[in-house]
């Protein structure tokens, strides 16, 4: 029978079908970080259970870590420090490899997985973090789990799962200059809503997807969860194989093993006549840069549009829109390009990879950040930081007036010192514009790296396509 990419991976990982209709799904890679793992290890200790396959679990620290050099050595916040020390202790006690603050390869968990070669086509990956969907860019079944499930994977290397539905998202056409992968995924979420993908695994197909680099594919898959989906996937192809083959990826196969793996990976793409539960087609030919105006990622529009009137937004009640605009401090009818920004954040697991920094640097090069605007540029990993410095991108950013930081989640969620102040407005390359996400009272607009950099220079949103 014809199978989808998802179905092929699922079938290969069913360790046992259970009587109640669920399955024990085998997990090939388990990524952990400081925020959602402590209670899972505590559970293991209380029950006297070991980690079943410690070599299949890899840890890093990202959410809590300060991104300024001096603070990294000596974390001021005692609770953050305790959480980080707890992870160090748990990894040591249970034999788990840790890429900690002292490691050259520390970084956001979803950035370092692919860098280290942990993320491979045809595997299953889970992590106690909803943006685990990022890894689906490799043709990997990857999804976020809660802490009880983290403990379950540590103890059994499996998860109890009900099979999700399949949802194909076909991106037709070709992206125009200045329009990016970030705009594709924001457009999709604006179309299906923040719960449109609930219960499903998305597979992104179409010529616009095939044309994307690995970095861009990761941006798309990263935000699948923002559309409510369990996971997002893209069939592996030469772009994928090339990424895995390149660079220093200690966990990736090499030599004959790599050839053998590629031969297998080539069998993974969905069969031509495989059926999906749902399909949607989005034409990207006329796609414009997207900017969110509200308090969830589905509240998004073209940069050329105006702040909407309550009652005029499909899928949202009048009250939803009123509440969102009130929180965001926006007046209906205002052109988005008239909205000023105070802070620009370039980074996160959505857009903190080397290509993202290169594109932002291109916009910044030879220009100056607008007066009064604070710009944080935060590489997604220490490897990205070193690569960027080797290319002198840090110099471009600093000359333009940006702050150049060490790797971490930073202002994506404001759990570390990088936070928006009350009523500060940001242009952010991250993935969530929820109330208070970047700091209490902070107002977040999600955009692509190019759009964020252009907003930093102009001091307000601009249509990057008209940028001279």
């Amino acid at each position, binding site marked *: 029978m014809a199978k989808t990419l998802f179905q092929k991976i699922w079938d290969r990982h069913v360790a046992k079908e259970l009587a109640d209709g669920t399955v024990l799904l085998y997990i090939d890679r388990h990524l952990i970080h400081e925020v959602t793992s402590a*209670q899972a290890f*505590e559970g293991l200790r209380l029950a006297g259970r070991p980690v079943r396959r410690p070599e299949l679990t890899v840890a890093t620290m990202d959410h809590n870590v300060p991104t300024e050099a001096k603070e990294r050595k000596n974390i001021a916040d005692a609770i953050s420090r305790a959480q980080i020390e707890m992870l160090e202790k748990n990894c040591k006690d249970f034999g788990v490899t840790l890429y900690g603050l002292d490691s050259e390869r520390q970084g956001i968990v979803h950035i370092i997985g692919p860098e280290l070669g942990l993320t491979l086509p045809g595997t299953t990956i889970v992590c*106690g973090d*909803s943006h685990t969907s990022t890894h689906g860019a490799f043709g990997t079944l990857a999804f976020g789990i809660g802490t009880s499930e983290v403990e379950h994977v540590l103890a059994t290397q499996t998860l109890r799962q009900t099979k999700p539905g399949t949802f194909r998202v076909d991106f037709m056409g070709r992206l125009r200059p200045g329009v990016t992968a970030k705009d594709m995924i924001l457009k999709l979420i604006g179309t299906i809503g923040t719960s449109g993908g609930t219960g499903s695994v998305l597979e992104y197909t179409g010529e616009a997807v095939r044309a994307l680099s690995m970095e861009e594919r990761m941006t798309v898959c990263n935000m699948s969860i923002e559309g*409510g989906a369990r996971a997002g996937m893209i069939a592996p192809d030469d772009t994928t194989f090339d990424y895995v083959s390149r660079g220093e990826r*200690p966990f990736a196969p090499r030599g004959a093993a790599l050839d053998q793996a590629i031969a297998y990976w080539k069998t993974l793409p969905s069969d031509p006549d495989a059926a999906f539960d749902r399909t949607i087609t989005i034409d990207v030919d006329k796609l414009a840069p997207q900017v969110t105006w509200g308090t969830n990622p589905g509240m998004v529009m073209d940069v050329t549009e105006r702040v909407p009137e309550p009652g005029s937004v*499909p*899928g949202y009640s009048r009250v939803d829109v009123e509440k969102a605009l009130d929180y965001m401090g926006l007046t209906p009818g205002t052109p988005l390009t008239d909205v000023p920004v105070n802070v620009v954040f370039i980074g996160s697991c959505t857009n903190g990879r080397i290509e993202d920094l290169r594109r932002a640097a291109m916009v910044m090069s030879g220009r100056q950040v607008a007066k009064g605007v604070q710009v944080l540029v935060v590489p997604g990993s220490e490897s990205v930081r070193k690569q960027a410095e080797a290319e002198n991108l840090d110099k471009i950013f600093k000359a333009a007036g940006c702050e150049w930081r060490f790797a971490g989640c930073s202002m994506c969620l404001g759990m570390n010192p990088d936070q928006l102040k009350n009523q500060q407005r940001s242009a952010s390359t991250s993935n969530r514009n929820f109330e208070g996400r970047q700091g209490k009272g902070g107002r977040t607009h999600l955009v692509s790296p190019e759009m964020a950099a252009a907003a930093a220079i102009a001091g307000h949103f601009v249509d990057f396509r008209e940028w001279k």
Partner: protein
Amino acid sequence: MTPFVKEHGIVVPLDRANVDTDQIIPKQFLKSIRRTGFGETLFFDWKRRADGTLDPEFPLNQAHFKDAIIMVVRNNFGCGSSREHAVWAVVQAGFRVVIAPTRVLDGNRVPAFADIFASNSVKNGLLTIELPETEVDRIFDAITATPGMKATVDLTLQTITLHGAKDETIRFEIDSIRKDHLLRGLDDIALTLEHATQITSFEAKHDTQLRAQPA
């Protein structure tokens, strides 16, 4: 885990859709390494006004809802992050049940709860009930008529009985796996470890593609 069989208590209304996990528990409270102490953090920012004092308008702060054990909300509750802390906060604030509507919008079904929130809930003995929107409206109306109204939720019978001006009973659907887990308060890990031999034999033939252990 505490089994869920039947619960009786006050119902508090929270008339908002798309309540995300950043609102349920703001991230500053995710730093704890313990599984307890999250009750106070539930809706921490929504409970307070800008000056930090408690907002008397917020339902959970109101005297007649103080001891509520059932929360009724709008669609897509618990969207956003995978943090189980959100469920811990709801449970440790004393809740046993959250009720939300499934909406149909432009022909699409908008779910009552986000996936990960719902699956985290079962693991913590929190019953999430999905109802058609009209039924949820009825509950909101009943509370408006009788603030502090109690209800009885019986998982075996799959019923919610509202003890408002008069008793009315609503039936709900629940997937049998979820129901069984909650009724028996099962420990998933212990159950899975009963299949340890099958996992071992699966591992013997399964290739995880892990090629190296870096130094």
